[in-house]
C-alpha cells in the first residue's frame, strides 16, 4: 500500500540541509547539544532545552520503540499508520510505519528506520525491527 505512495520531496533549508545530505547516504541524524548533553529532533541550530548554539550532528542508531500510533483508514491515498517512535537516543519522532501489517502495530514494539525515495532527499520511516 504505502510502497506505491508518492512522498513529497523535502524543501530543505540551511539549518537542516546536513540532515538531508546524510539521508541520501542512508544515515539518520539527530542533533545533540554539547552544552547540556540533550539530544533533540527535528534538528535545530539552537538547543530547544538550554538555548546553547553548541549543537552537533550525531548519527542515530535508527532504533526505537513505538510510543503511539493510529491507523488512518479513510484516506484518498489508501490507509496509512502515523505514530511516534521514541529513539534509543531519547527523542520521540513523528513518522509513518511501513512495510508491515498495519493492523498489528503495538505500543512498545521495537522498530527501525527505513528510508523511502522522493524526487529529492529520501524520507525516514519506521518498520518493525
Amino acid at each position: 500500500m504505502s510502497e506505491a505512495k508518492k512522498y513529497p520531496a523535502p524543501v530543505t533549508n540551511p539549518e537542516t540541509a546536513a540532515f538531508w545530505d546524510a539521508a541520501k547516504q542512508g544515515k539518520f541524524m539527530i542533533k545533540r547539544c554539547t552544552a547540556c548533553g540533550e539530544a533533540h529532533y527535528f534538528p535545530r541550530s539552537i538547543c530547544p532545552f538550554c538555548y546553547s548554539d553548541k549543537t552537533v550532528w550525531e548519527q542515530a542508531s535508527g532504533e526505537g520503540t513505538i510510543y503511539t500510533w493510529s491507523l488512518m483508514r479513510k484516506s484518498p491515498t489508501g490507509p496509512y499508520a502515523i505514530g511516534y517512535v521514541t529513539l534509543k537516543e531519547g527523542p520521540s519522532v513523528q513518522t509513518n510505519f511501513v512495510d508491515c501489517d498495519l493492523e498489528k502495530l503495538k505500543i512498545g514494539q521495537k522498530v527501525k528506520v527505513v528510508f523511502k525515495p522522493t524526487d529529492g532527499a529520501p524520507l525516514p520511516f519506521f518498520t518493525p525491527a
Partner: protein
Amino acid sequence: MTIKGKAYIAGIYEHPTRHAPDKSTAQLHAEVAKGAIEDAGISKDDVDGYFCAGDAPGGAWPMVDYLGLNTKKLRHVDSTETGGCSYIIHLGHAAEAIAAGKCSIALVTLAGKPRTGVMPPRAAGAEVDFESAYGATTHNAYGMCAMRHMHDYGTTSEQLAWIKVAASHHAQYNPHAMLKDVVTVEDVLNSPMISDPLHRMDCCVVSDGGGALIVTTPEIAKSLKKPLVRLIGHGEAMKGPRGGKDLDLTYSAGVWSGPRAFEEAGITPKDIKYASIYDSFTITVLMQLEDLGFCKKGEGGKFVADGNLISGVGKLPFNTDGGGLCSNHPVNRGGMTKILEAVRQLRGEAHPKVQVRNCDLAIAHGTGGLLGVRHAASTAILERV
C-alpha cells in the same frame, strides 16, 4: 493586575446555518457581527475593538473595512491565531484591552465554509520537512492521543462513546443541530473505524457557519438590556513535542491554561455548574476534563461514563447545544460556539430541556491545532452577575 470582572459579554450570536454554499465567507462574518451587535443592543459604529483569527478573509484590516466598522473610533485590533481556541483567547485579550482602557466595545467574529469547499492551507512551520509527509490530520493526531491514553490508563472505547451519547441527548433539543438523533454506546462502537481507536461517531461534524461576541465594560454592559455575564478568569497555553523530549500525548496544554483561569477566578472545578468543552473528538473532551481538574488524570473514562455529562442526569452538564459532535463545528473551529452556549446557560437562554438550574458559574474551554502534535489551549470562566 487581573481581568477578573473587568469585561462582560453583552452580545452573542450563532449563525443558524450549517451549510452555506450560497453565501461568501466574509458575508457570514458580517451576518454574525450584525447578529451579536443587535443582541447587545448597540450600534456597529460603537465598536472600537475588533478581534478575528485565521478564518477572517484577508485578516483584520480587510475585515474591518468590509464590515464597515467605524475607523474613526476603532482603536484596538487583535488577530491572534491559535486555531479552534482563537476566540477564547480573543475573549481574554479583549478583557485585557478593556481593563487597560484600550477599547470599550470589542467585536469578535468567526465564520467559514469547510462543508462547502476546501479551507485555505495554513502557512508551514519549521517542522514541515520532518512531518508533513506523514499525513497528520485531525483524525489520526487525536487517534494517537486516544491510543496512548488507553494504553497508559485503560480508557476504553465504551467510555469515550459516552461523551457522544451525552452530546446527542442535548442535540435532540437544538433545532439547528446537524445530528439530532439520540445515539447509544453501541451505535458509537458500531460506527466505522476512521483512525484507530476513533470511530466515526467519536468525530465531530463538518459544518459551515460562524458566531460572534460583543465584549464590553461593566458600565456599558449594565446600561444594556441583556442578563449580565462577566469574565472572571482566563488562561492560555501552548504545548508541542519540543524536540521530542519526554513526549506525553495523554495531557493537553489545558493543564496550564485551566489552573491559570481558576486561580484568577478564585474558584475550583467543583464550583462549575456548566461546562463547554471543545469536542472535536470524544478523546478531546476526556483529556480536557482531566487537565482542567474535573477528575484526576487517567480517571476521565470513569468520569464521563453512565451519562455524567448529560444535563439533568449527571454531575457535569456539558455542551448542551449538542456541541461539535452533534450541532456544528463552524470552520473546523469549536472555540466560539463553546463561549456562546456557556453564555446562553448563564443567561438562562438554553433550551428548557437542557437549561442548568441556577447556573451561575460556567467554563468555556478549547484547544486549537492538533492535540497529538502541537496545539494551543484557552480557558474562560464566566459568571452570571
